[in-house]
């Protein structure tokens, strides 16, 4: 009897999905977009997923964010490629939401639109001198060494002095510090962009300062990245002994987080190891962890007008604000730190598009478990039917690749609930409609097969140089390779 039931239900289920194709469009092909695609495909047998991306290349920050000396992190591309090549999934690169297509048009074409286009801008410090040359956001610098086509011509000046200052102490800060300090012979065998490698080879930067407003217990970096930077050949780590002293509030924070505790222990160990060594070699590379300092203003060079020559820093102390959290407050005591280059690694920010509710303060799209919220009055949130977010656009620029796995699970959970509620009953044109629209607007879309041609060409070019790949770094080269 029960077997009959099972068979009956299975056949009913299959017939119900085949008569109701579900058209899904995901904007952005980074980890958030691809995990969303994976979960939609698995949860809905009748779903057809189109992924669009403004770049001709997929994988978002796995390609343009993950550091070149982290090839193991990029292995995720294998799994993401399997998702993109799924028979019910299509990738269309070089398609820009907001210019080639409007959000309203996408929503007309698809039952479900998931925005997962990440955070392509930067937070500002809002202090005097921020627009001086020589000051970059870490994102720009990262996109430059990773060969992002929008930043391949950045040409940062690494030859004017021996000192660079990085504002921020998260993993992005550690990534850029590592790229600045690591022997270029080690970088040469990574997929770092050729233009970046040649600038780094001639770099005169020997000292990098990582500036944090708070102490070693609150630093946003993670143990893996810290351990890695501590292991760089011929690199001296500098940490002031006094910065490592703990308050009862610090002890409490560490008790509640094993990650913080392990990071603090690593920093203490590094400080102790560095204490015994003495200065000798002028070419010695140094990484200084500077805690309890916040930038107050940037200093302009006297010789080079319009160029940064240093940062004025204010000393800080920590103040408890309840629930175990401590914030930095200025003490009114200032000091200058001279440098010829500043990288701001203080966080990414998402960019709004027309027709999309946006929280400008937080830099995210207001949402409830991935459903885009158009209006909130009291406890009631009104959501936009069929419109969802995932990844950094949904929760802000924090977390690792794996965070998106759970983020996508939540968003797809909301989508599934809404489908059951009958939100997606109307018939939609889906891919066919998108193709017509792109053709009408003469948009040269790059399909996954086009990316595979880029991929093959890059790998081929890499072989000659003993690199995993030599990235194509201009729009022209990428589009030409895809069309070949």
């Amino acid at each position, binding site marked *: 009897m*029960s077997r009959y039931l*099972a068979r009956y*239900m299975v056949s009913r289920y299959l017939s119900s999905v085949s008569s109701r194709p579900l058209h899904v469009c995901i904007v952005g092909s980074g980890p958030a977009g691809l995990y969303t695609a994976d979960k939609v495909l698995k949860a809905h047998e009748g779903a057809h997923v189109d992924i669009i991306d403004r770049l001709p290349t997929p994988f978002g920050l796995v390609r343009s964010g993950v550091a070149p000396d982290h090839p193991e992190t990029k292995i995720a591309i294998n799994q993401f490629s399997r998702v993109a090549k799924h028979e019910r999934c299509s990738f269309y690169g070089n398609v820009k939401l907001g210019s080639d297509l409007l959000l309203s048009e996408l929503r007309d074409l698809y039952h479900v639109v998931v925005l997962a286009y990440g955070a392509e801008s930067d937070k500002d410090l809002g202090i005097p001198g921020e627009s001086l040359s020589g000051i970059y956001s870490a994102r720009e610098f990262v996109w430059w060494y990773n060969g992002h086509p929008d930043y391949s011509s950045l040409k940062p000046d690494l030859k004017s002095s021996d000192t660079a200052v990085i504002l921020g102490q998260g993993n992005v800060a550690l990534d850029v510090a590592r790229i600045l300090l690591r022997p270029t012979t080690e970088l040469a065998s990574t997929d770092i962009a050729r233009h970046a490698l040649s600038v780094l080879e001639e770099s005169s930067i020997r000292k990098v300062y990582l500036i944090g407003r708070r102490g070693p217990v609150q630093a946003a970096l993670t143990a893996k990245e810290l351990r890695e930077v501590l292991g760089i050949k011929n690199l001296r780590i500098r940490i002031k002994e006094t910065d490592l002293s703990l308050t009862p509030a610090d002890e409490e924070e560490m008790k509640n987080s*094993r*990650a913080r505790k392990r990071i603090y222990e690593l920093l203490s160990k590094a400080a102790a190891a560095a204490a015994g060594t003495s200065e000798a070699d002028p070419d010695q590379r140094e990484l200084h962890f500077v805690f309890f300092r916040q930038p107050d203003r940037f200093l302009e060079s006297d010789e080079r007008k319009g160029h940064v020559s240093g940062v004025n820093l204010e000393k800080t102390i920590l103040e408890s604000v309840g629930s175990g959290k401590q914030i930095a407050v200025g003490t009114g005591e200032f000091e200058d730190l001279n440098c010829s280059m500043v990288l701001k690694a203080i966080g990414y920010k998402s960019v709004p598009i027309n027709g999309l509710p946006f929280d400008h303060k937080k830099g995210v799209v207001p949402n409830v478990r991935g459903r885009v919220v158009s209006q909130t009055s009291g406890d009631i949130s009104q959501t936009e039917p069929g419109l969802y977010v995932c990844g950094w656009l949904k929760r802000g620029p924090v977390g690792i690749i794996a965070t998106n*796995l759970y983020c996508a699970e939540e968003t797809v*959970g909301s989508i*599934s609930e809404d489908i059951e509620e009958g939100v997606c009953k109307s018939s939609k044109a889906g891919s066919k409609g998108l193709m017509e629209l792109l053709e009408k607007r003469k948009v040269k879309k790059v399909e996954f097969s086009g990316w595979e041609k880029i991929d093959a060409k890059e790998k081929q070019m890499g072989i000659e140089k003993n690199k995993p790949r030599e990235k194509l770094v201009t729009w022209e080269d990428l589009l030409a390779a895809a069309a070949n």
Partner: protein
Amino acid sequence: MVFHRLSRLGSRIVRELPRGIFMPVFGMRILHRSYGQYLQSSPMLQRQTRSLKEALFSNNRKFCTSFSTTSEKGGEETEKINVIFVDKDGEEIHIKVPIGMNILEAAHENDIELEGACEGSLACSTCHVIVMDTEYYNKLEEPTDEENDMLDLAFGLTATSRLGCQVIAKPELDGVRLAIPSATRNFAVDGFVPKPH
């Protein structure tokens, strides 16, 4: 073995049925009582689903009893242990894992949805599993610094969390139950404060 595969297939079909449409009538979800702390479900639902599970998949039982030595083709002897996965929906999946195989690989061989983005190179935390009994957790070798670095970042970290790729099947682990963390219960995606280890 045939019945075992069949029942796995059956449970997968059932799992993919749309949530909530059939459940009130037939109670097709397979739920177990034992992981109450991970899933709050009504006792009524459990009763319904348990009885149905017994009716449908009773043949499964004999294949999941104890540690066994199976004769493979070609006369080679491969020792296998029983491993029970509790997936994101709270369903138990019983599999056999050859001694020496890691849990991530075993999950993939059995179509269990456990991510392994870095393919076991200790560069991600997507194969995070929670060992559900401390007794079994203590039978595992201590995690290395590298594994701990990744666990620090794992979603929904618990005191008995491990990376699936680092857990290798050995006889003492026979009967171990491993939960796959879920975003839909207990844990918030952001701002999760890991518990002290």
